[in-house]
């Protein structure tokens, strides 16, 4: 496939690995956080850690929208189905996220009670949810909208379309979150700030989020925190080059935002999509993230002008915090403090077929990535 296969070429990868070995200084360590789960997935799937010199250590970040969704948000969706009798549309990944009472959307769908099979539907696109609403005018249809800035513009579009169509039976449970506040939260955490257990020398910045927001929103990281950021594509060669660029910045004592993914990302990003988001959404004062806690101005809610399409308003439901499974280390993993293999449930009780925490659900989750591609190698390295 064009623009994919070329960026996975093995020969070029070994060349890039040689280039990395050439610039790495032997007298220091380089600790880089890949913010996105997409990069985590690539690093595990292609075994990039094995191509990197031992001085370079990659730390997983919190950039997996499924992983950072707290239990209480899934509970809200299940309550909407069970108590308010709505038809719920969800992307595939949130379906398997563990909720309270041993439930998940998938189990609620299969289980007894009011929620029969057709009340929870898996959709591929936000547009599908709109279609379900049009096909079922006698039912209230709710889209469980999750995701970073990548997935937000489509949600904005369908809300506007629903308004234009005068659809009275469609609304959105908005759980969209923002990337820059999550990065700031990591850099502000005591573990990172005081150079404690997780010093970070630089960040691999999001690929597809950045097609929308551009590279400009990361400039505060370089300016205020003095950390280099390289926005990178999700293919293995993209990640390798980004690591090389970060090492070069660190060696030169520079902290700049650089763009490795120039084939799809600009500094300004997609203005059309940004304007749409600004028209439909506004900042929430605070939002609960799994692992990171309540972060101020880190998520979006639907503006008053579109209030009738806001499921939280329409059905008067509130978020209630629920504690994670006591042994699950997702929180620490999302902050980069622990690795999946340091969780005692990893690969024993917790597996992709039977996830205990959200990091084992999505293929972009650190636990799922390690389980599928790297658990044995990684266990060896850790022990």
């Amino acid at each position, binding site marked *: *496939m*064009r*623009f*994919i296969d*070329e*960026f996975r*070429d093995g*020969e*070029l990868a*070994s*060349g*890039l690995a*040689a*280039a990395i*070995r*050439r610039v790495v200084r032997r007298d220091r360590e380089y600790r880089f956080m890949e913010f*996105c*789960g*997409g990069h985590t997935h690539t690093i595990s799937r292609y075994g990039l850690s094995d191509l990197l010199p031992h001085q370079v250590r990659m730390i997983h970040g919190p*950039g*997996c*929208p*499924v992983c950072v969704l707290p239990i209480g948000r899934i509970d809200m969706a299940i309550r909407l189905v069970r108590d308010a009798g709505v038809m719920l549309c969800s*992307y595939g*990944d949130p379906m398997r996220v563990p909720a309270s009472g041993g439930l998940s959307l998938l189990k609620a769908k299969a289980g007894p009670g009011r929620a029969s099979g057709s009340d929870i539907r898996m959709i*591929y*696109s*936000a*547009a*599908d949810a709109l279609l379900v609403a049009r096909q079922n005018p006698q039912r209230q249809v709710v889209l469980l909208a*999750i*995701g*970073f800035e*990548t*997935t937000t*513009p*489509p949600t904005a*579009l369908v809300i506007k379309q629903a308004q234009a169509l005068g659809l009275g039976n469609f609304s959105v449970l908005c759980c969209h979150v923002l990337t820059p506040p999550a990065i700031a939260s990591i850099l502000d955490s005591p573990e990172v700030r005081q150079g404690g257990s997780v010093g970070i020398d630089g960040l691999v910045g*999001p*690929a*597809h*989020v950045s*097609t*929308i927001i551009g590279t400009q929103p990361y400039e505060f990281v370089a300016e205020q925190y003095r950390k280099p950021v390289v926005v990178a594509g*999700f293919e293995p*060669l*993209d990640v390798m*080059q980004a690591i*090389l660029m970060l090492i070069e910045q660190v060696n030169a004592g520079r902290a700049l935002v650089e763009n*490795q993914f*120039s*084939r*799809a*990302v600009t500094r300004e990003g*997609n203005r*059309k*999509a940004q304007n*749409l988001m600004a028209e439909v959404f506004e900042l929430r004062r605070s939002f609960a993230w799994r692992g990171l806690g309540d972060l101020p101005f880190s998520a979006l809610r639907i503006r008053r002008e579109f209030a009738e399409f806001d499921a939280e308003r329409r059905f008067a439901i509130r978020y209630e915090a629920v504690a994670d499974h006591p042994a699950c280390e997702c929180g620490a993993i999302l902050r980069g403090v622990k690795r999946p293999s340091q969780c005692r449930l990893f690969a024993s009780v917790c597996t992709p077929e039977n996830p205990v925490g959200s990091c084992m659900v*999505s293929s*972009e989750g650190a636990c799922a990535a390690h389980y599928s591609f790297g658990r044995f190698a990684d266990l060896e390295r850790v022990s």
Partner: protein
Amino acid sequence: MCLALPCRIVELRPDDRALVELDGVGKEISLALVDDAAVGDYVIVHVGYALSRLDPEEAAKTLALFAELGEAARQERDADPAGR
């Protein structure tokens, strides 16, 4: 969730929609988030929406740079095989 793939536009359709092709499979997507996309362009598609256009020139430059970096490293190693 944030994964998206580059797909080629093969046909423009009404209402900002388009038929794209990925690995021989056709799929209808929305172009509502991008401006001026044309048949033959590659767009990055996520949950049924094109997020941005892919710039083939920039892609070629990046690929050329990969090759150049690898070549430089290789030449250095060949010049000093026992080095490091």
